[in-house]
């Protein structure tokens, strides 16, 4: 049997390929998370006229690894009143749900681990699971700050998922498929043919909901330090805290990736002619994610935190009716003018 046959037919070959694919996604993702924390701090520093991390390594580039090492070496403290199993399980859930969603994200034409029919629903399902890590953490900690943080987070994430759902519906109405590769292919062409332009208000709704979904400023009420110490992860230390941190950043990158796939044409180059199309699609995809992540950090540096009732009002009384209306308008436009796919 040749090597190619071994990898495509034999079960051991399949297993090796699968593990290699997982590593090929997880390792770059974790490096991206590490440098996202660095970029985050540098961007806030620039906004606040500071220097940011600049001591460890050249330009402070080794800072994320120093932080990671510090978290690994510290002691994991489990509070005596905590529910031990769930207390340890919670950060794992957060981290794992942030990682497994990447299985369906297309990095380039055909570069996807699982090219499933219902990719967008899978993404939506997995991103709605993130709330469990937070709720279980808050409950298992047996601490009032952690519990309040968890309650806030649960209410917030459930509220904003509704509008994200409607945003996804408008996109799949336009693309005519639930498969993420097909959605990207439906946007083929330069930046003017991507969905951010025809669906511009939904792009904004999606981005703001993504901020709320990942508990970022201005919606970081679950861990607002002025009121709740550190919110749901008050009682966590060392690597259990580290997993929350990694999961949170991986989720941010995931939602940026979703934004890039749904609205910014995935792997297509913004200008569809010679010098730009030579650059591989995965680079464009990474650049689009980076742009969205920059906006995440920029928002954190410039916008004050919402009050809780305002947050709920925005989710239920502004975004929900608006996105519902937009779904109806999009469907009507597709039906009346025949703009739809096929």
């Amino acid at each position, binding site marked *: 049997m040749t090597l190619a046959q071994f990898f495509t037919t034999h079960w051991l070959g399949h297993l090796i390929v699968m593990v290699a694919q997982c590593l090929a996604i997880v390792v770059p993702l974790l490096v991206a998370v590490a440098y996202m924390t660095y970029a985050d701090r540098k961007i806030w520093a620039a906004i606040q006229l500071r220097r940011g991390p600049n001591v460890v390594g050249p330009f402070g580039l080794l800072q994320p690894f120093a932080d990671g090492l510090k978290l690994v070496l510290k002691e994991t403290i489990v509070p005596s009143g905590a529910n031990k199993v769930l207390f340890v399980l919670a950060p794992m859930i957060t981290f794992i749900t942030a990682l497994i969603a990447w299985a369906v994200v297309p990095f380039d034409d055909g570069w996807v681990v699982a090219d499933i029919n219902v990719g967008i629903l899978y993404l*939506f399902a997995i991103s*709605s699971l993130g709330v469990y890590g937070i709720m279980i953490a808050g409950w298992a900690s047996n601490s009032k700050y952690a519990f309040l943080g968890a309650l806030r987070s649960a209410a917030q994430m459930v509220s904003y998922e509704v509008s994200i759902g409607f945003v996804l519906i408008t996109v799949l109405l336009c693309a005519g498929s639930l498969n993420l590769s097909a959605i990207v292919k439906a946007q083929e062409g330069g930046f003017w043919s991507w969905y951010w332009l025809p669906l511009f208000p939904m792009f904004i709704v999606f981005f703001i909901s993504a901020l709320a979904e990942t508990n970022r400023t201005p919606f970081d009420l679950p861990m607002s330090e002025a009121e709740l110490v550190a919110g749901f992860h008050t009682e966590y230390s060392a690597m259990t805290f580290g997993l929350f941190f990694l999961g949170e950043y991986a989720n941010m990158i995931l939602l940026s990736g979703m934004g890039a796939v749904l609205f910014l044409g995935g792997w297509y180059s913004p200008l569809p002619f010679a010098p730009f199309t030579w650059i591989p699609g995965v680079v464009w995809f990474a650049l689009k994610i980076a742009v969205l992540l920059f906006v995440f950090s920029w928002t954190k540096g410039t916008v004050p935190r919402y009050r809780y009732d305002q947050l709920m009002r925005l989710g239920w009384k502004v975004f929900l009716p608006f996105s519902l209306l937009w779904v109806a308008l999009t469907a009507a436009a597709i039906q009346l003018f025949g703009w739809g796919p096929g």
Partner: protein
Amino acid sequence: MIHALAFYVFAAVTVVSAFMVISARNPVHSVLYLILAFFNSAALFLLMGAEFIAMILVIVYVGAVAVLFLFVVMMLDINIAELRQGFLKYLPIGAAVGIALFAEILLALGAWSVSPVAAGSLRAKVSDVPNTEALGRLIYTDYMFLFQAAGMVLLIAMIGAIVLTLRTRPGVRRQKIAAQIGRRREEAVVLVKTRVGEGVSS
């Protein structure tokens, strides 16, 4: 082989976690086992090739319904010893309800027959039409009015729930965004000329 193995693993976990839902001492653990059961049934749907239903199960039940369950149960302050006390007292009525339900399921299964139309759509190829599309055609084309009627029933149930739980409390002060934004300088600020040493007398 792997298919069958996966089926038995998921089915076993579903049954065990469903049993744990009713036998776990801590209600929060019950809800978490319920979530595990939902997950494994979604996996069973996936094995049958019904990927759309599997994903909807996770989104709706795990992502929304169970979150609200957990939300409520976490806030309960339950004394577990007290909860155990009534077990023998409620056993007869619980058993009666259980037996009645079981008998009904048996009856329904016994009288079950598949209509020729449905049998045809059951045997429709899974592979050439994605099952999202097949379901869409079934719900929005073939059974459009039944589906709308089901929607109306749900809407009425929802309105009923709201009407039952809505309390109109007098004297609640709400934030009126429009009124806040609509304020002008003239109605908000009064300039008073004061003499030094006298201050403002209202």
